[in-house]
């Protein structure tokens, strides 16, 4: 099957921009719109828009989804664990996060070594960039943990994970990539879509669920 490539994409690649980078940049508004839709219409909060977005890209950059998810879960697990470990020390915020980051990086290092040892070369060869992104998750997680408690932080982390996994599948969906290469202008449609989402005043799906018992009695 002949791949339909838009002239502007041709122009970009001829100027030396790698095609992977172009696809990632074109995917970004779509994933961002998807996250905005999930928040305003469905009611999934996650850690804002930036964190799930960048985690999606971290997943895309690791060799396969499962290593990304493994690192993600490790980060959250350590965040939980360290809260209990550090509680008696009563440290101020930044030093506390610094210690947590230290433990997280060491753990990931151990994971990579173990991965190499078990001949899971895929894990060991994950590039440093997505790992760093994942580590920044710690601060987000700790901030929510302090403000809203463990339970909320866990729920939001779980939502972030789910969104990022969906985002991963959207961004690596072949037909969508082909459409974007053929008609890159289509991404401008996300702007009117976001205007509609941004003006949406109806109940979120999660709110229908939350209020389901009382709706019948109004």
């Amino acid at each position, binding site marked *: 099957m002949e791949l339909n490539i838009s002239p502007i994409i041709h122009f970009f690649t001829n100027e030396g921009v790698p095609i992977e980078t172009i696809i990632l940049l074109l995917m970004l508004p779509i994933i961002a719109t998807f996250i905005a839709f999930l928040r*305003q219409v469905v009611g999934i909060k996650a850690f804002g828009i930036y964190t799930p977005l960048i985690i999606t890209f971290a997943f895309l950059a690791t060799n396969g989804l499962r290593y990304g998810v493994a690192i993600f879960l490790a980060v959250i697990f350590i965040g939980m664990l360290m809260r209990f470990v550090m509680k008696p020390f009563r440290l101020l*915020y930044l030093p506390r996060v610094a210690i947590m980051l230290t433990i997280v990086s060491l753990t990931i290092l151990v994971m990579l070594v173990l991965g190499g040892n078990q001949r899971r070369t895929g894990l060991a060869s994950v590039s440093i960039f997505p790992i760093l992104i994942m580590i920044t998750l710690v601060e987000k997680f700790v901030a929510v943990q302090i403000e809203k408690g463990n339970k909320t932080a866990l729920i939001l982390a779980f939502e972030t994970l789910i969104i990022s996994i969906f985002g991963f599948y959207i961004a690596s969906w072949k037909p969508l990539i082909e459409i974007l290469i053929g008609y890159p202008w289509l991404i401008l449609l996300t702007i009117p879509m976001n205007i509609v989402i941004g003006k949406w005043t*109806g*109940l979120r799906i999660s*709110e229908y669920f*939350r209020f389901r*018992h009382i709706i019948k*009695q109004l």
Partner: protein
Amino acid sequence: MRSTICEYSMFEFFKNSRKLLGMNSRNLEFIRPFNRAKAKRLADNKMRSKRVLKKNGISVSKLIATIKTIEDLENFDWQKLPNSFALKPNRGFGGEGIVVVYGKKKGRDDAWVKADRSLITIEDLVSHIRNILDGSFSLSNTPDFAFFEERLQLLKLFKPYSYKGIPDIRVIVFNKIPVMAMLRLPTKESGGKANLHQGAIGVGIDLATGVTTTAIQNNRLIEKIPGTQLSTSGLRIPYWKDILFLATKAQEISGLGYLGADIAIDKENGPTILELNARPGLAIQVANLAGLAERLKRVSGIKIKTVEKGVRVGMDLFGGEIEEELEEISGRKVIGTVEKVKITGKNGKEVEVEARIDTGAGISAISKELAIELGFDEAVRYWEEFNLDKVLSEEEIQKLSANKTWKELEKHPDIVGVAKTYSAHGATYRIEIKVSLLIDNLAVLSKLSISNRSGLAYPILIGRRDLNKFLIDVKK
């Protein structure tokens, strides 16, 4: 057949759901247009909103001390703290970072007792305040102040209903009209905090009467306080109108068009504003089994000039009609033309006398002797100094009014007003005092005018102004 029922209820479901306020609508249609950044900043700053409210004559809990820097903390004189107090972060939210102590530990100078009977020492407080200053409890972790304020005293009425902490009342006010209210009861699960998502109970309130209706805990309807046989409905909240008034007044002062006011009732000072909320939550709808969207729609666009009017409109629009009707029909007591009345005067002095019920008189009157007996001797003497204790002519009264004598009279703290009476026997210029009357077991807060009733059979006469709650049977 089945499918039509199903479709019908789906239709009903979506139709009903439009009465509810959701996050999107709250943010876009109410908070954004009506809560300006400046007003929001005021609400988020507890100390400043306290100051602004107080300046406008609104009751807030008294500030004891503030700690703004580490130096303040190091130089703080811990012995100046009273036995009970609340320590709060200035920009805290959701009740986080608040410490309440109930008394000093016996025999110790450096430790207080918390609600759960655990001790908190000066050392613990220092470390907690450090965390506050560092921003651990503030919005987006920015550095913060800590402050101490007087602890509010739990009302006896609420004691069986709340676990340790103090319950509070959230009132949503929009467009100078109170639209919905909820009583929040601290539970064991919520650790004595009146915070719904920590497990406190939210109880809906009928806006007209201040009587509780339905209740929720953890988003589920409940009928009894867990672990007790106490019903969550039917509790009459005291000072109800004052509470609505306070919330509405706070909206006017703060400039927050869409406000959630948190009010607690102090044993001594009555309704007191705890804090103002620029982004009030949606759970109040579940507690009341009522939708905010529908109510907000009904009040938007109504022009309200005064706070009193707004409160009245809110009570009329959002009160249960059934209860009101019941009160109309059976709530009024029937009394005779002479009734035994218990009067509570100054310093709790109580006297029981027979009173003349007189629908021919507008205002109520009390004899000088009885007023003195009730502790108003100073007020009576002050009045007598003006030499007004007699029958006057109409010209004299007009002169008194022109001279603004009433202003002089009202300078005395016990004198709450001045009444002019005209009758066939001549005119009088009387002072009024405030007392509480118990007529047939119904309390009436009354202003009594003091008059010379020597030679009359009854030392007190109750006029129309104090008889709203009664029907008079002349044969009784």
